[in-house]
């Protein structure tokens, strides 16, 4: 019997005091599509980065075609036929597609030549075989997310991988793009490539994979063949004991006055898509959901609503007392070198005079208790907290100041199930009537349709800088997906 293409066993990897992997195992056979499942933080990306030579394991073995190997850098991995498509594309924006594809190949002239002609030929071949098309002479920074992913895949394919690893490739794609990606993976597998597909969306993996491996807390806890396992089995393996679902918040919401309004707003500069002809209103006691594939203008919309940006045309009426939960919590939501009290201070510094440190400290203590932030004291550096606890800190702080409006940008991304539940419940609680205070309005921008369907009172879809309301009859995954694709045309 031939040995498997890849066998990883007993893999341990620490980051400082944290054990990201603690005895993980994975076996990939030639010609299969292998789903790697797990919650965020389960260690999927770490495991595959080890396979791709980006990280090294502290202990454990990696065998390729039955022989043990040590991969000390990505180049080693390619030599062994392992290609990886990263979740966060590893492309150089300022360089052209052709330059990106040529980077690091080092095939002709030992560094003095350039392999452009060869790369063009190879890309043409691959295009015939796979149907992947990319504009070779454009700068990567000009490409759409879907195009960038195709470049990333081609970059891996140019190195003739016998093993192709894709880390969360579907997160940034429209449903149609997902379907064609899966067709490509099937083609590659049929040619004998071993394909590893990381995802945390179960249904996608089940649609395309032959076998699955489930990671939890850095360990491999389950392995099986698709068709022989029940989805519930996989969910249990992913999350451990069945999650304690807290009851959704009070549903009886009362719509109040309009607290924020955009009228035919346009935004000309800034990264990503500019906005055009955006009109929307947010009322007290309402959660307005914004759906869409990332990079279509949600970022700019969030900054406008939160008063962090001014429109170039049209009118934006937004309240002063606004909370803002930015998507990138480690860089925009909090200051890693500040402790909990100081991070709380980010919401209480306006004006002149002295900082009201004593009251801020009290609020920080309350936040640590009420939001169950796992930190030894309020003097703990925010950077020392886990991702979920950082998000609790940010959410808690912003909810404390969101007296008229709260803008939340993917507030549950990267959180585990319990933390996700917690954050959604707080959002719902916030707009609930009958707390003796007037509730704020909430704008929830999310890439997670299920989240929007669960908590939003109404949903709008953002496509290429425009906002399309979702009619009630289309308030389903498929309906919203279709709107994302159609672009309101």
């Amino acid at each position, binding site marked *: 019997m031939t040995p498997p293409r890849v066998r990883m066993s007993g893999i341990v990897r620490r980051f400082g005091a944290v054990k990201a992997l603690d005895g993980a195992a994975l076996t990939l056979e030639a010609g299969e599509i292998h789903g790697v499942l797990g919650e965020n933080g389960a260690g999927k990306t770490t495991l595959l980065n080890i396979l791709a030579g980006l990280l090294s394991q502290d202990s454990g073995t990696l065998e390729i075609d039955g022989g043990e190997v040590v991969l000390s850098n990505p180049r080693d991995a390619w030599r062994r036929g392992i290609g990886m498509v990263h979740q966060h594309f590893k492309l150089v924006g300022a360089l052209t597609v052709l330059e990106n594809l040529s980077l690091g190949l080092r095939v002709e002239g030992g560094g003095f030549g350039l392999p452009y002609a060869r790369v063009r030929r190879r890309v043409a071949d691959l295009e015939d075989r796979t149907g992947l098309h990319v504009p070779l002479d454009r700068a990567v920074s000009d490409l759409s997310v879907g195009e960038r992913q195709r470049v990333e895949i081609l970059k891996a394919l140019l190195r003739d991988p016998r093993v192709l690893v894709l880390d969360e490739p579907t997160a940034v794609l429209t449903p149609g793009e997902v379907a064609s990606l899966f067709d490509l993976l099937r083609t590659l597998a049929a040619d004998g490539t071993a394909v590893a597909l990381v995802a945390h969306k179960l249904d996608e993996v089940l649609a395309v994979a032959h076998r699955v491996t489930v990671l939890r807390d850095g360990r491999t806890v389950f392995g099986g063949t698709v068709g022989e396992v029940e989805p519930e089995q996989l969910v249990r393996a992913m999350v451990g004991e069945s999650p304690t679902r807290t009851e959704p918040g009070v549903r009886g919401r009362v719509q109040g006055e309009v607290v924020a309004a955009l009228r035919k707003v346009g935004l000309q500069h800034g990264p990503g898509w500019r906005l055009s002809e955006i009109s929307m209103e947010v009322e007290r006691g309402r959660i307005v959901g914004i759906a869409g594939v990332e990079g279509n203008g949600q970022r700019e919309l969030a900054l406008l609503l939160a008063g962090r940006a001014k429109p170039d045309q049209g009118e934006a009426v937004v309240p002063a007392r606004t909370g803002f939960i930015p998507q990138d919590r480690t860089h*925009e939501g909090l*200051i890693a*070198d500040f402790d909990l009290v*100081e991070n709380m201070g980010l919401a209480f*510094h306006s004006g002149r005079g*002295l*900082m009201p440190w004593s009251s801020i*400290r009290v609020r920080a203590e309350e936040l640590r208790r009420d939001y169950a932030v796992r930190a030894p004291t309020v*003097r703990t550096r925010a950077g020392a907290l886990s991702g979920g606890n950082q998000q609790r800190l940010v959410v808690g702080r912003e909810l404390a100041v969101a007296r008229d409006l709260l803008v939340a940008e993917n507030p549950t991304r990267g959180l585990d199930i319990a933390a996700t539940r917690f954050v959604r419940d707080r959002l719902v609680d916030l707009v609930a009537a009958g707390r003796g205070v007037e509730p704020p309005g909430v704008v929830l921008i999310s890439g997670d349709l299920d989240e929007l369907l669960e908590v939003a009172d109404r949903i709008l879809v953002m496509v290429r800088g425009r906002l399309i309301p979702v009619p009630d009859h289309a308030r389903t995954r498929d309906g919203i997906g279709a709107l994302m694709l159609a672009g309101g045309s």
Partner: protein
Amino acid sequence: MSEGLVPQRVRGPLFVAGGAVLATVLVAGLALLLGGFDPGQAAAAMVRGTVGSPSALLSVTLVRAVPLILSGLAVAIAFRAGVWNIGAEGQLYAGAMAGVWVGLSAGGLPALLALPAALIASCVAGAVWALIPALMRTRLGVGEVITTILMNFVAIHLASYLVRGPLQESRGVFPQTDAIAEAARLGVLVPGTRLHWGFALAVLVALGASLFLSRTRAGFRLRAVGASPSAAQVAGGIDARRVWTGAFLSSGAVAGLAGGVEVAGVTYALYEGLSPGWGYTAIAVALLAGLSPLAVLVTGALFGALEGGASAMQREAGVPSAWVSFVQALVILSVLALDRLRRTGTTLALGRSGGDVAEASAEDDGSGGEIGERSGGA
């Protein structure tokens, strides 16, 4: 510049500072040996010349420390905000030029008016000298590192022009100005020594800067922008450009004050080479202090001793005076290296626990005050 180039809160500053001093002493001593000098003799000369007697301490070390403390504070304020002001030297010269100009024309004024006028003029001139790089950064996106350095050269040449041209002393022989009016001079702080009231002023500015950073809203905004411009702007809604501009101008004003105080307290005149590079030494002063204003008082005195002792070292042990810049460079590099080692966690366990204790005790502005009772060594 990117965020977090220097840690906003330098954790374990005592560990880093102590280690840096140790490393510097070792390397500098070794280099002296290699150069054929006697490190012991040099060190003895240094100690005698700086702290060996009350007059050495007060008239040499602390007098030398005044411009270093003030320019060190200037650098610390800027760096805390993430403004890479390498231009304290030029701002110091600008302050000295303005101070001398006012001091020369203040003949008829009472001291109560002339001295403040001269010092305020120094501050304004320093701020104006910083304004150009500040505007170039915030309006045009030109990095301040290069522009502040270029402004240094412009200031030095301008001072050289003034003392050979319009402001040259009345006999027209030496490249320096006349002495400023008595009314515009800083009095002696400790009778019988050369220590002037500028020292008290420097201590006052350090205290003020420390309270500003730890207690005030504007000080918090400055620290937040310095620690993470993106979080300060997005989560804090802070106008980072305003904070940068404010920090830049304040930094320039304090550096200008350093020049004004030197003129009003020590030289009473402007001449070429007034500053032996204090604006650059200030970077070492500020970094060794972990960018904490109160610690700048200590590190400023340390570097004052180093500069004051250099002439004694040259006299008694024959060590070239240019040596001092090399030692300063060693200090900066050791601070940087030790800080990196500590942050990347490859330091010894000893260093880590030492750092925690230091954090609890040496933190003067960690959002401090009534809520700042840090659990020591937690």
